[in-house]
């Protein structure tokens, strides 16, 4: 249970970062932290105490206790999606830097309202 609480704290740390930081790169880092905390959360869901890897080692010998493989498969997909979002965010941040010569959010304010 302690692990779940710490995982949730990590999520909140990321959320705090996204809401309060003023540097584009730091906002991206904070989003990544949130994402990692969710990856950790999914792995924790699938964990079974004393469980083995869910692979048939030899024909006919099924391990008695196995961890749940589905969250692991899901989180592989989520990591790939996270990679795509982070790459796109960084690409846009670089383009923004070229236009505005700053990473500071308060300096980037062409839009209002």
């Amino acid at each position, binding site marked *: 249970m302690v692990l779940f609480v710490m995982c949730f704290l990590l999520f909140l740390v990321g959320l705090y970062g996204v809401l309060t930081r003023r540097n584009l790169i730091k906002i991206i880092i904070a989003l990544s932290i949130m994402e990692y905390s969710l990856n950790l959360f999914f792995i924790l869901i699938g964990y079974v105490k004393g469980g083995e890897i869910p692979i048939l080692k030899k024909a006919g010998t099924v391990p008695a206790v196995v961890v749940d493989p589905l969250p692991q498969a899901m989180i592989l997909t989520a990591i790939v999606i996270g990679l*795509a*979002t982070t790459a796109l965010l960084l690409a846009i941040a670089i383009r*923004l830097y070229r236009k505005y010569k700053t990473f500071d959010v308060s300096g980037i304010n062409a*839009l209002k309202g």
Partner: protein
Amino acid sequence: MMEALLPLFVVIPLGFAFITAVAGRYIPQFHRIAIPLVFLFLAGLSAWMMANIRENILLYMVGGWEPVNGIPIGIHLSADGLSVLLLVIINTLAFFSAFYSYAYIEQYTSGQYFYALFCLMVAGMNGVAVTGDIFNLYVFLEIAAIASYALVAFGTKKEELEASFKYQVLGGLGSLFILFGIGVLYWATGTLNMADMHKLLGSAPASPGIVFAGVLLLAGFGIKSAMVPFHSWLPDAHSSAPSPISAMLSGVLIKAIGIYCLFRFFFNLFAVSVQFAYGITTLGVISMLVGGFLAINQWDTKRLLAYSSISQMGYVVMSTGIGMILLCRGGDMKIAALAIFGGVYHLVNHAFFKGLLFLNAGALEYRLQTRDLLKMGGLAHAMPVTSATSLVASMAISGIPPFNGFFSKLIIIIAAVRAGFYGLAILAVIVSIITLAYYLKFQRYAFYGKPSESGLPEKDVPFSMKGTMILLALCCLLLSVLVFPSLRNLFLMPAVHALMNMTL
């Protein structure tokens, strides 16, 4: 037989996304001609499915993985009346936007990447509509969202990049909340299949874990569908995107990955609860009011339209929320059905008239190179088609008979009165008057009054843009026939019953 068609809605646009990115470089004009035809085909296919689905539920098992001992193991695609209705809206609007882009895209370089991203976005939205698996829903939702982030920044000007960054950070936050919610749901139930999860959650009273997941999902989809107070990204993103994309974002995307998912989760997955029903209705009412009041003050055409989207989505969510409250309380099922019908009908109508209004704004921008209302004026004679179609759309969205928006707003107000929510009915009428006010302002400053100093354009927009706008204006008029009982029962009631039956 029909269920074998479901994967096509994802596979065809996904395949063409990659074909266009490559072939568009070597075969000139390939993307401009092929992609509208692809969407026309998909729109026809989905319309045929809608005419034939009735109350059936289509189920397709990807890879042929049959359930073992009644426990589903593979990913299922499933479609009921609501999914098919959404497929029709997505693909029809995609066809119109792609055809409109034929002329509009000349302003940009690398048109093939525009169409490739467009296809990816449609593939993601179609996937959200047909999937029957909640993690699969998240994956498709991200495909659509990431493609839309890139499309918002397509012009790579200062404002577009800034809007895209803002949209990505808030959209990413929304996605993470949704993923968290899905994780908690899997933890609580041990399944990802929607029908299976409904069996587990539908009857039992909600445990604290499920309520927590519900709150996370409400926040996540609230951000995706830009409900006030999560709306701050929408006016920037929808006004900065290229106009055909604005039409897709406002007309379809916020419905497909926001409102549709919200309804799917809170009607079909969870046992409907009074608390969430009141929460959803409140979000709808606040969006309707705040969106309307913020729109009055805008001088940028596309920002005005974007705020108006928030307000109109508020109507949809409020009406469906009223239906949900009645369902929980065990009130009159007929009034609940009427309220949900009003919401679904307004959702369909909004896709068409808001799509048309954004295309009008795009036509003005194409000729005048500005979105500022104060720099326009007297365009009614110079651009007759744009002027006439935008008048139709403005009247439809402000609820003037005989256009479709009048009937859907009337049904929403009648449903609110008959359900006993007199205050909400009065608010809906007031916001409707405000809507009329800011669309009159749009008409007055853009098309009537004195011409601006920069002079009038010599001619109206090219054929593909004109043709699309005329067809959409006809749709605005024709959709009002859906209020007749026989057509309503054929096309819209399957969607309402899909939500009411609370099964998938």
